[in-house]
């Protein structure tokens, strides 16, 4: 599929990176453009590129200034790099073979796994079952990874269970499923955090010994599947009992 040209601005993130900013919005179309340009620049990197980091509505390209200066000769390296990007961004990007994964993530919403569930139910004047139903009834898109290794920012959450971040971060256990604003996500590590915790997955989201140490990647679709406490324990022992992945080609549609 092809992607519409979206207005953007470019800015320097220090003297070794440049960011393409497509507008400060959580938006499926904008993020799709970010990811399309990410794929394009990964396949055909501008010389000197060291890494590409997509986010909600931005794509940041880090570069080796030494290499870029060699190519730019007398010209300012940043301006040279910027000109290369501007040229590329003039043309729409066509891509038909994106592999879109759908990952099914088992989540236990039992009280012991969900310290904030009851308070949210009280505040929203709905039952815990309704919260679980709202959280599990739609697929989410992984917009970006950040904050911690393997932490996926997913959206968009049903507005009926949208909650602000906590004012003070608390200690959160690895595997905890949180919500904040329009977002939902899972903590891969024990960490301080401000999201409201409504469940927990028995899956390990970070495995240093694996060739792909991180479970999610930007662009993935994610579905949460409710499980009971005894299933949680079972999967903790043997995660392979759960079939998490489904692959589709060119599957950008919901």
């Amino acid at each position, binding site marked *: 599929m092809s992607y519409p040209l979206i207005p953007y601005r470019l*800015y320097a*993130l220090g003297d070794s990176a440049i960011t393409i900013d497509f507008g400060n919005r959580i938006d499926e179309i904008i993020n799709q453009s970010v990811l399309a340009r990410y794929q394009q620049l990964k396949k055909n990197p501008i010389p000197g590129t060291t*890494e590409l*980091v997509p986010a909600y509505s931005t794509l940041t390209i880090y570069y080796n*200034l030494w290499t870029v200066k060699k190519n730019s000769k007398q010209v300012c390296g940043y301006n040279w790099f910027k000109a290369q990007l501007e040229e590329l961004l003039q043309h729409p990007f066509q891509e038909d073979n994106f592999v879109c994964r759908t990952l099914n993530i088992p989540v236990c919403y039992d009280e012991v796994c969900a310290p904030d569930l009851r308070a949210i139910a009280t505040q929203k004047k709905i039952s815990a079952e309704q919260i679980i139903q709202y959280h599990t009834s739609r697929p989410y898109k992984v917009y970006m990874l950040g904050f911690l290794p393997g*932490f996926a920012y997913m959206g968009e959450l049903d507005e009926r269970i949208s909650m602000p971040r906590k004012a003070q971060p608390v200690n959160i256990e690895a595997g905890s499923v949180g919500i904040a604003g329009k977002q939902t996500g899972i903590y891969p590590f024990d960490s301080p955090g401000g999201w409201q915790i409504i469940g927990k997955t028995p899956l390990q989201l970070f495995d240093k010994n694996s060739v792909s*140490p991180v479970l999610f990647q930007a662009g993935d679709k994610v579905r949460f599947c409710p499980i009971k406490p005894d299933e949680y324990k079972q999967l903790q022992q043997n995660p392979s009992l759960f079939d998490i992945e489904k692959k589709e080609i060119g599957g950008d549609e919901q």
Partner: protein
Amino acid sequence: MSITVIKAGIADSIQDSGRFGFQHLGINPTGVMDRFSMQLANALVGNEVNEAVLEVHFPASVFLFSEPTILAIAGAEFSASINGEAVPNHHCIIVNKNDALQFHQPIAGTRAYLAVKGGFHVTKWLDSYSTNIKAGVGGYQGRTLKKGDEIMMNNTTDFSLLIKNKKFLVLPWTVDVPALTDKNEIFVIRGSEWDELTNESKAVFTETPFLITPQADRMGYRLENQPLYINRTEELLSSAVNYGTIQLLPDGKLIVLMAGHQTSGGYPRVANVISAHLHLLAQLRSGNELYFRLTDIETAEALFIKQQQLLLQLQNACTFRLHEYFEEHRH
């Protein structure tokens, strides 16, 4: 060959120039805080400049060498000694079997770098030796050093002929570099939200000193000054950040992101420290004052290139001197 920690320091870890190429997975680069000093230490012992080194804070570990080893120390001045006898920074030092390296007193700077000829023999994780403590990976068992840790070294050359039965040796040459510590004028370029700062806040930023608070570590330094104000009502979404990115927190205070920073941030980015000055910032610590000086990207690039050229020159010179020394003293 190995180096053993006989007393643990507060936060010593194996680092290299950083783990790049995985930030899109949320995996932060880490790496040394003061890359210039790391590269200098490596150049002195004739290593490739980005070889893994030990980043040492004060109070530092005490190290024992199992075999004759060639080492160099750069960065902070912590009054290093071998078996109690003072040794200088920025020299090649040949130590003997069972010699102990110790750091006695912080004289200047915040982080010292210890390079050994051949480098440390630790396992790479995602193309880098850098320790990532949060993920428990890289470096030595993914953590800071503890008493009893024994780190292997890559070197297989026997240096015992160079040192024979002598005590340790400090080789006579050194490197001529600009001061690396106690420099508190930090050059920055404008960040993406710089223009949104009020004029008064821009003046505060460029003209008044910032104090580094006790909340200053490898992830970032929180700075103290009068609050800065920004003309912005809309919150920023999370996006990528960089080493040296200066973010404006909701309370009007600044935080400058250091080598251990997370991959993303959602606060206004008012400025970015230039690459050529990150090593100066890395040698400051809580209690120090610093001034930000606004410059343009052309100047930032020129200073970086100049620094890299200096390093290349020093690397060539050091490799040559060391080679000559080996030839003369081999027999």
